[in-house]
């Protein structure tokens, strides 16, 4: 029997791909958009507009000097109503620009197709587009596409696994915008100089697989590979291992094993951007969950409030108990419906109490399910204990920093222990200790 390559560990999660056959609908222009100055991993942007200033669609409203960052654009035309520090959907305070939309959607004069004749121009164009990894991590794309000279990249992996339950936004990208995806792949391979392309996709999406295979058939060097449907197949390290057999060591990046990984919606965006020059100002979002009236795939402007998105989907049929940005395994619970859709938002889920309530915690029985489920081979039960008693030696010994926070451990825990929460606590303890050690070191230098 042919066994599909995969990683060890992981969990079988219910698919809940209820929205896979629902065409994407555009949400209209909201009254106002809320645009945080950080929608990527790396340095936050500084606002380049002032309160009261008129802005147009596609206009840059935030930039950063740092290399690891991505510019931020206005998704509407209108007037800057407010610039203030707001709690960001992941819990941090971030400068945020609020724009009152005028509904005209006048396009800014800088928005035009970029001219790309070589790698440098292409990287610059990708940077100007504001593209970040749309799979959920939000890593600036131009950084990823521009590895240091000493890294020998031979493979481009397109991540179409979409292993989280509920989410179908990447699947809809394939079904609706396959031409853009192919154009994007062509551009990346041409300018970055990678000849080998592998599209990895879970085998629960047969229609998308056959469509991609058909399109790839006419091209050289593009391989579409069906992957075993098992969470977290789309986690970068697991995906690279399943497709190439290479293991990315802890603390290293895909480029260290000669690979660039891009989400399929990200390459689709590259394909479109090279044609129309419109920066990343909108995003397809799967809206689903037990409390949602009309589960949908919607295209929302970046900065659209969650309440506007849920209203568009017919509102709630029962009182929402939990709102999640992202999937149920790794998504972030939201405390307010005033939070905005961001660049890498791929799903908004609203659960009622029956579905969203996590049963109470009981004592660890050392069953080892967390260890068996961990795709990176950690022992969450020991990290949990170490974090709760702040045992720093044990936190290091059990490789706390190597956790990818996929949630398999907590998902499979029969005692319902919030293992990811305590692992995050453990990471914070380690980072604090490291920062303190660094500070002590520098003070010692001053004294001597």
């Amino acid at each position, binding site marked *: 029997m042919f066994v599909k390559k995969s*990683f060890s560990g992981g*969990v079988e999660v*219910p698919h809940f791909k209820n929205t896979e056959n629902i065409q994407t609908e555009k949400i209209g222009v909201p009254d106002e958009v809320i645009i945080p100055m950080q929608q990527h991993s790396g340095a936050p942007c500084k606002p380049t507009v002032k309160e009261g200033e008129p802005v147009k669609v596609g206009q840059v409203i935030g930039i950063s000097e740092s290399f690891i960052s991505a510019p931020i654009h206005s998704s509407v035309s209108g007037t800057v109503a407010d610039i203030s520090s707001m709690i960001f959907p992941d819990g941090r305070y971030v400068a945020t620009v609020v724009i009152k939309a005028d509904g005209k959607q006048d396009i800014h004069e800088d928005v035009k197709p970029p001219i790309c004749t070589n790698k440098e121009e292409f990287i610059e164009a990708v940077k100007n587009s504001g593209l970040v990894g749309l799979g959920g991590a939000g890593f600036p794309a131009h950084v990823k596409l521009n590895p240091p000279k000493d890294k020998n990249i031979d493979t481009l992996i397109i991540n179409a696994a979409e292993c989280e*339950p509920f989410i179908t936004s990447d699947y809809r990208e394939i079904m609706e915008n396959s031409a853009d995806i192919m154009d994007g792949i062509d551009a990346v391979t041409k300018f970055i100089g990678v000849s080998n392309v592998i599209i990895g996709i879970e085998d629960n999406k047969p229609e998308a697989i056959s469509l991609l295979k058909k399109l790839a058939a006419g091209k050289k060097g593009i391989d579409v590979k069906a992957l075993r449907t098992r969470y977290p197949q789309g986690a970068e*390290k697991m995906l690279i*291992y399943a497709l190439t057999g290479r*293991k*990315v*060591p*802890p603390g*290293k990046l895909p480029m260290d094993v000669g690979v660039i990984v891009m989400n399929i919606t990200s390459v689709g965006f590259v394909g479109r951007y090279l044609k129309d020059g419109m920066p990343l100002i909108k995003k397809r979002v799967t809206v689903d969950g037990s409390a949602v009236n009309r589960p949908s795939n919607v295209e929302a402007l970046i900065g659209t409030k969650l309440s506007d998105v849920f209203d568009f989907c017919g509102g709630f049929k029962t009182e*929402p*108990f*939990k*709102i*999640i940005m*992202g999937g*149920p*395994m790794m*998504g*972030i*619970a939201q*405390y*307010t*419906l005033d939070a905005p859709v961001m660049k890498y938002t791929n799903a908004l*889920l609203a*659960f009622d109490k029956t*579905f*969203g*309530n*996590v*049963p109470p915690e*009981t*004592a660890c*029985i*050392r*069953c*080892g399910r967390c*260890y068996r489920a961990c795709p*990176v*081979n*950690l*022992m969450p*039960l020991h990290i949990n204990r170490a974090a709760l008693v702040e045992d720093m030696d044990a936190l290091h*010994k*059990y*490789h706390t920093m*190597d956790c990818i*926070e996929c*949630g398999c451990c*907590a*998902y*499979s*825990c*029969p*005692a*319902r222990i919030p293992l*990811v*929460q305590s692992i*995050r606590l453990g990471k914070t303890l380690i980072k604090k200790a490291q920062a303190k050690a660094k500070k002590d070191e520098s003070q010692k230098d001053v004294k001597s």
Partner: protein
Amino acid sequence: MENNLHVSSSPHIRAETNTRDIMLDVIIALVPASVMGVYFFGYRALLVILVTVLAAVLAEYLAAIVLKRKQTIGDLSAVVTGLLLALNFPPSIPFWIAIVGAFIAIMLVKQLFGGIGQNFMNPALAARVILLISWPVQMTRWVWPDGVSSATPLVILKRGLMAQAPGYLDLFLGNVAGCIGETSAAALLIGGIYLVVKKVIGMETPLAFIGTVGLFTWIFAGGSLFTGDFLYHILAGGLILGAFFMATDYSTTPVTRRGKIIFGIGCGILASVIRLYTDYPEGVSFAIILMNVATQLIDRFTVPRSFGGEKNAA
């Protein structure tokens, strides 16, 4: 309405299996062995099982009250402990000893060390060993329902009375003298396979344990090397019960795959050595609780390297 939004760390969904489901699976897996025990040893075996289980649950209930802990009889772990303890009793055991055993297992070995998941010895086995040392006569008197007493297969072997030894088929089915739940290899294997299929336990420990006993007795149990009757050693006594149901206890055995194999091999060597070279005919219980004590040590030296990572300095 917005103030009612619930916020917590991901993941936001959980698998359905909880602690109670796991314990229920273990109980289900022990049903065939219990039924065979009652079939061969009569209604008194059933009474021993009921009394011991009820005493264990009562002990758990009282412990929670005395120690001011949350009531945990609902997780069924006390039922599992009581059942395992009962299956390790001879059918003729006085009820008061069974009850004392249940209280030792739950109160002393389990609850005083912190309750479920915290005990460092298998409660049922530790209690059994304490009883065995305290009341050796009552704990090793093997009587059939018709009042005839006889020796267990391992005692027969120890005394060198091989002419009286039961055949492999009787050993396999369980029609021999012994503890209520240990004699029927067939019934225990059905239960063990059920647990493996339901992924409650892994194959590592049982295979390593039984394999080691088989290998060790094949090499050393015969008149000369490599002539031992390993099949007799595997089928007789408490090996299969111990390997599938006791050496796989979560709290008291290693978590990692490598740790489980080391644990199983250690149990196998100790059990074989006790059977072959000491005055005790059977060594499975002693072997497992001795290895229970080594579990923390094994766990410490078998921390796996993380994905793509370097070997851990222990």
